[in-house]
């Protein structure tokens, strides 16, 4: 990558906040809310499915319209009655806190109630002490970064919603022991989408916090969806960690209101660094809990008990992205500071440890969960470094990861539905038994780490960002990414390894699911070709507006990567040119084959069957041990982070 430094012509002082018209932003927040209400009151699943699909299309289209070349962009205006909105939001926040408080008491999770109480307390203190003095100029605005996130939520989120219609139907057919609360499910899904748009479009920090906590609540309710004791326990774990983050967030707002009175994101980011370090640390902490960084990763693992669309939507593609979104927003503040280095360290340790742990997991969803945590760690690393290169890499990572991970989760969910297992070992020979699905999984896996797919490009960018700022962090990236190589390829290998030819059976998978899966697969591939466009139109302007400089990939390297992509693309073509003239023979088994590649003549004349199982290396990369080590390390780093911020 050649660095191309441009200086922008904006003042380095106050940012002119340019944003799409407020109406569009409000539509994206409000429309899903309306849809949610319709969904919970509608009668019958058929009607509900129609509404979901229709709403998904509208939301995706609306989000995309924001980034079209001729999309309207103007100075963000304040055409809202801010006072009443603020008061309304405050009341809603208290209601939220009260609800959580009540839940905590009801299920004897007193710590949760305590957290809710504390957070409410902070909110009240802020409002009482500084409610009149601190004003918000632009509560809602969307710069290019927000738009990128909005498109991700709009497109990926909608696809997942479409998928979940077919999925949840089969889910309840298979699991008659769980109560059918699908109205609530879809209601929460769209509330969540609304809240996500709210997070990305909020410039006011308290507004952001409100939407943030709404997503926490949605996550809690959705994890506990099936009503079993186990899922409730996991839901409370998630709630606890997320509330911790929310508490930190509220603390940041209180601090900011007390000291500088700056409670808006755009102004916060352009503040003087030494004034903003404490709130930055607090907000980074909030982001890290939401993004399941060590030591808070167990909630994401626990969340895997939820139905697959929940895992895909909340816990890989969108909600956890809110956490890293926040950290990336803080990048200009964290750059070059010790606190920022600590944040980067947490991200790095998380990336390394999570990647190592993923090696020992044979449950596909757990592999995906740990991989998600690892990639979020990488993004946090970028945020902590905070240079323009790092920011560029981080945003790119978000885009690619959201799409690819959603694809993988949905594929695994479909697989689990068909076969009732999530074990990777059971996926042997999937290329023959479920060809379409296995190809999509392979596309997803390739998208996660293979050149020239997007994640590789992003990792490349991260490496460059690190060597230009803090080379020691490179340790985490090089060791972590070699670990990812191992567990992805061994999964991929399992899919194509065929020891006995069984008939293909992909029946019983809803059309809607196929539509979602194929669209995501196509997107994964398309992104590889189109990311330069995304970069130049969306990412680079944003980065440039903050730093006055951008980084991009040189023309030469783009050509090289296109050639690589072209070569890789030839591969599927080869499946159509099968040479009939090769001689097919069984595998070498020392000559003892018994009419197959896996059965052989054993010692006493009995026929034995060979089984081939991947290495999981639990003794070395076992979850428990590594988790403890990583958590201790990160806790220490967190203390240092707060210490140096103070």
């Amino acid at each position, binding site marked *: 990558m050649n660095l191309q430094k441009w200086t922008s012509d904006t003042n380095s002082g106050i940012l002119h906040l340019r944003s799409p018209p407020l109406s569009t932003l409000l539509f994206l927040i409000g429309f899903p809310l309306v849809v949610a209400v319709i969904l919970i009151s509608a009668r019958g699943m058929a009607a509900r499915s129609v509404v979901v699909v229709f709403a998904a299309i509208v939301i995706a289209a609306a989000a995309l319209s924001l980034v079209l070349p001729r999309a309207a962009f103007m100075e963000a205006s304040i055409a809202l009655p801010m006072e009443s909105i603020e008061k309304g939001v405050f009341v809603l926040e208290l209601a939220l806190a009260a609800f959580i408080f009540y839940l905590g008491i009801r299920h004897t999770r007193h710590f949760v109630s305590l957290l809710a109480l504390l957070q409410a307390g902070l909110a009240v203190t802020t409002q009482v002490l500084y409610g009149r003095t601190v004003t918000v100029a632009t509560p809602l605005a969307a710069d290019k970064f927000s738009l990128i996130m909005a498109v991700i939520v709009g497109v990926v989120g909608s696809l997942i919603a479409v998928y979940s219609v077919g999925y949840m139907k089969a889910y309840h057919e298979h699991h008659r022991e769980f109560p059918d609360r699908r109205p609530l499910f879809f209601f929460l899904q769209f509330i969540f989408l609304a809240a996500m748009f709210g997070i990305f479009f909020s410039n006011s920090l308290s507004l952001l916090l409100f939407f943030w906590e709404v997503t926490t609540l949605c996550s809690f309710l959705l994890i506990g969806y099936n009503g079993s004791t186990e899922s409730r326990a996991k839901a409370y774990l998630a709630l606890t960690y997320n509330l911790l983050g929310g508490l930190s967030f509220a603390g940041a707002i209180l601090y900011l209101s007390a000291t500088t009175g700056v409670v808006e994101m755009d102004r916060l980011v352009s503040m003087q660094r030494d004034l903003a370090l404490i709130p930055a640390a607090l907000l980074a902490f909030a982001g890290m809990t939401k993004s399941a960084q060590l030591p808070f990763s167990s909630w994401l693992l626990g969340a895997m008990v939820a139905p697959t669309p929940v895992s895909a939507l909340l816990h890989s593609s969108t909600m956890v992205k809110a956490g890293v979104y926040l950290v990336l927003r803080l990048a200009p503040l964290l750059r070059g500071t010790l606190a920022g280095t600590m944040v980067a360290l947490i991200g790095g340790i998380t990336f390394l440890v999570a990647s190592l742990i993923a090696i020992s997991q044979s449950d596909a969803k757990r592999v995906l969960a740990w991989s998600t945590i690892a990639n979020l760690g990488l993004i946090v690393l970028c945020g902590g470094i905070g240079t323009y290169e790092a920011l560029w890499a981080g945003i790119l990572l978000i885009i690619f990861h959201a799409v690819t991970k959603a694809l993988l989760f949905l594929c695994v969910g479909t697989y689990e539905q068909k076969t009732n297992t999530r074990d990777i070992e059971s996926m042997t020979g999937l290329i023959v038994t479920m060809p379409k699905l296995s190809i999509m999984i392979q596309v997803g896996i390739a998208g996660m780490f293979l050149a020239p797919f997007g994640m590789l490009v992003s990792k490349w960018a991260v490496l460059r960002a690190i060597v230009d700022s803090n080379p020691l962090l490179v340790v985490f990236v090089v060791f972590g990414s070699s670990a990812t190589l191992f567990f992805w*390829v061994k999964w991929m*290998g399992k899919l194509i390894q065929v020891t006995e030819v069984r008939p293909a059976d992909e029946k019983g998978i809803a059309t809607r699911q196929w539509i979602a899966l194929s669209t995501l697969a196509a997107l994964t591939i398309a992104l590889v070709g189109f990311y330069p466009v995304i970069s130049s139109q969306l990412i680079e302007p944003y980065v440039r507006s903050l730093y006055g400089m951008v980084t991009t990939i040189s023309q030469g390297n783009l050509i090289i990567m296109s050639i*690589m992509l072209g*070569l*890789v693309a030839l591969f599927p073509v080869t499946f159509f040119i099968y040479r009939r003239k090769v001689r097919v023979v069984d595998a070498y088994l020392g000559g003892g084959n018994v009419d197959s590649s896996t059965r052989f003549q054993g010692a006493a004349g009995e026929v034995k069957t060979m089984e*081939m199982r991947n290495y999981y290396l639990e003794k070395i990369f076992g979850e428990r041990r590594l988790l403890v080590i990583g958590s201790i390390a990160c806790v220490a780093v967190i203390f240092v982070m707060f210490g140096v911020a103070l």
Partner: protein
Amino acid sequence: MSAGETILVALIAIIAAPLVGGLLSGIDRKLSARMQSRWGPPLLQPFYDVAKLFQKETIVVRRSQNFYVYFFFAFMVFTTGLFFTGSDLLLTIFALTLAGIFLVLAAYKASSPYSFLGAERELLLMMAYEPMVLLTAVGMYLVTRSFIVVDVARSSVLLIQTLPGIFVGFVFILLFKLRKSPFDLSVSHHAHQEIVRGLTTEFTGPTLALIEIAHWYETAVVLGIVALFFAAVPWLAAVATAAVFFFLILVDNVFARVKWQLALGSAWIVALALGVGNILVVYFIR
């Protein structure tokens, strides 16, 4: 370099690299034989082997297994072209990794126990040497401020002076990459190994020949990276590369194969101690 020049250099590299690699392979076998008090095969033996293999029948276990090998070969050629036209070092490494992954996938596809074991071990080995390889690129960048091979090659800094740790670490993992004892766990040139031929067990004839030729390409590329450490003094680069190659053959003949735990652990410790250590030193000196 203009586009035309680039293509010309790439073509020359793509034609010359396997010839050089094959010759080096022949030297390897001859030297090993001499170290074992034998005469050994003629220097051109690898070429005879490959020529013979092209005339053998193709046998497969799964019909699509050879396609992975073709892509392994294609990307190995591509990587060679990439490196010798002086392009981005990181990109070269990623392309090399991609090629290696295709070979592993081919072995998985072959669906045989031995090739499967070879594939798992190969993945372990890739995990083992990947950090050091990346650290090499990072180290070179820190000293020359560029990832571009041409820039590194033209740099007036004698890299070995500032990157001795990384150099030693890289030579250490060359034992992995060139499939030399004690780290030839997944596929070996030696007569027997406990998993038959490992990765290449189920490949015959022309496909096996392609795998061998791809290995020649790889040899050329990694020795090219070794030469980069001495690029500032060309004659020294030639001598040092030859010395490293001889050293690798010597180690190959002296050591027995180790288990994967030791292979993985030692590679990572070397990467950490020598690679990261060297980077620390370079970083703090600047």
